């Protein structure tokens, strides 16, 4: 006799109670699970696929869970400064040193090295192929007013680019210099569209090169050296931070096992990162 519609009305009331209980359990569930290690890294590092490949080894070995947040360098350091992550892995040496000096991080370790490359259209109108050094290539591009696409987002790549422009003693002009504020992948695509020059980390280049008509025109200058460091967030600033987890990750990445994993990682047949923690 109680038709369905009456039952539905009752259910709505029960559903409310059930859900309050659910919310309570949900919000508390974090206590029961193992505490994750939060790693902030840069988009170019993450996009290379290295972490995706090697982190599981660490997780299996130690039983930890790593949550990787991939954002711009500035944002990654900010996250560490605010205590929202436990450890940062970035590639901006000057910024890193200031950061540690300011007391935000401890135990900075060198992890690996790769390099930046300069890309451009196949016909290379600026004629940078075979140039002697990176600074000269940028000078040629600037003089010829050839379109150059920049990250413009304060990332490690962008910081390197800015450092190089400083050395050219030339100021890029808006007529040919495009500051995009975008990630490396997008920037490569835009450079592709515009037949423009750009500077990129080798990893993203290797991932995308088959889809682009851009060519690698300059590499090898020690100026384009790209070192990565890992830094633990200063535990005295935030008592609740997973410092032990952070140190455990740093230990593994700089251990023989971790360094070997880094060395083994290949993109498109090429070795991408060169371990630098242990001098041999």
């Amino acid at each position, binding site marked *: *006799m*109680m*038709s369905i519609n*009456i039952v539905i009305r009752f259910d709505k009331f029960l559903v409310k109670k059930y859900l309050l209980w659910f919310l309570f359990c949900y919000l508390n569930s974090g206590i029961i699970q193992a505490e994750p290690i939060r790693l902030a890294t840069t988009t170019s590092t993450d996009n290379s696929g290295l972490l995706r490949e090697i982190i599981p080894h660490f997780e299996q070995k130690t039983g930890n869970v790593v949550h990787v947040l991939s954002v711009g360098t500035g944002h990654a350091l900010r996250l560490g400064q605010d205590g929202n992550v436990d450890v940062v892995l970035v590639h901006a040496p000057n910024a890193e040193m200031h950061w540690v000096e300011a007391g935000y991080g401890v135990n900075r370790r060198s992890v690996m090295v790769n390099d930046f490359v300069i890309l451009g259209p196949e016909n290379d109108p600026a004629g940078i192929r075979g140039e002697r050094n990176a600074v000269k290539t940028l000078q040629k591009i600037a003089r010829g007013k050839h379109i150059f696409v920049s990250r413009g987002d304060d990332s490690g790549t962008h910081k390197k680019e800015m450092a190089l422009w400083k050395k050219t003693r030339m100021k890029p002009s808006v007529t040919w210099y495009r500051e995009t504020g975008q990630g490396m992948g997008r920037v490569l695509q835009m450079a592709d569209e515009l037949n423009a020059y750009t500077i990129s980390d080798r990893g993203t280049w290797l991932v995308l090169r088959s889809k682009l008509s851009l060519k690698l025109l300059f590499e090898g200058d020690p100026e384009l050296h790209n070192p990565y460091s890992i830094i633990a967030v200063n535990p005295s600033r935030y008592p609740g931070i997973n410092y032990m987890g952070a140190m455990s990750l740093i230990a593994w990445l700089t251990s023989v096992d971790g360094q070997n994993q880094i060395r083994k990682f290949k993109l498109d047949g090429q070795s991408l990162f060169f371990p630098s923690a242990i001098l041999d």
Partner: protein
Amino acid sequence: MNEPLLVFREIEKSFSGSQILCGVDLSLYPGKCILLSGKNGVGKTILLKIIAGLEIPDLAKIEISGKTNSWEKAVRSVRKEIIYLHQHPIMFSSTVESNVAYGLRFASLNRKQRRESVDEALEWAGLTDVAKKQAKTLSGGVQQRVAFTRAWILKPKVLLLDEPMANMDHESREQTYQLLVRMKSAGMSLVITSHFMQYFEGIVDQHFQLKNGALELKSKS
């Protein structure tokens, strides 16, 4: 001889600036029927709704078995015994059966008792044939009967009917009249508002007219 069930005293209500009810007194007797007439919009519906506890008066007192209480204090217990029926009753989106059973949920009856009660009520009103039909799809006259039954099944002491015979054909009016007679003999106190005094000949015990915010006694049988 007759003890009033309830007495409402000094009901005052103003609406958007104008005073609709100024000191209305009304006594309700079991098994008696009061007819309320008056111009459209004079406040008959509001008066009924105040009595039913659906509208809040500016001022009112309720007398139960000789004891007077303010409206706020007494309305809760009084409300349970009074049911108000709209001029055009609204059906819930369910079957006739379900509509009739609506109020029973809050009576302390078990499933079997509820079932029996509903069956009895449906028979009383002659609705057994349409019990399983969607109430909204039925004609106005049948819906009216469903509304009556919905109220009757709860055996209220007071039933307030707002223009119960308006827009009805002759047959429906006949059926409604019969239902009202039965309700009266079951001891219910009825208050009916209507323009059509002739329809209620034979059952009305007191006739009041609401005029200028007060009740005028028109006739008494």
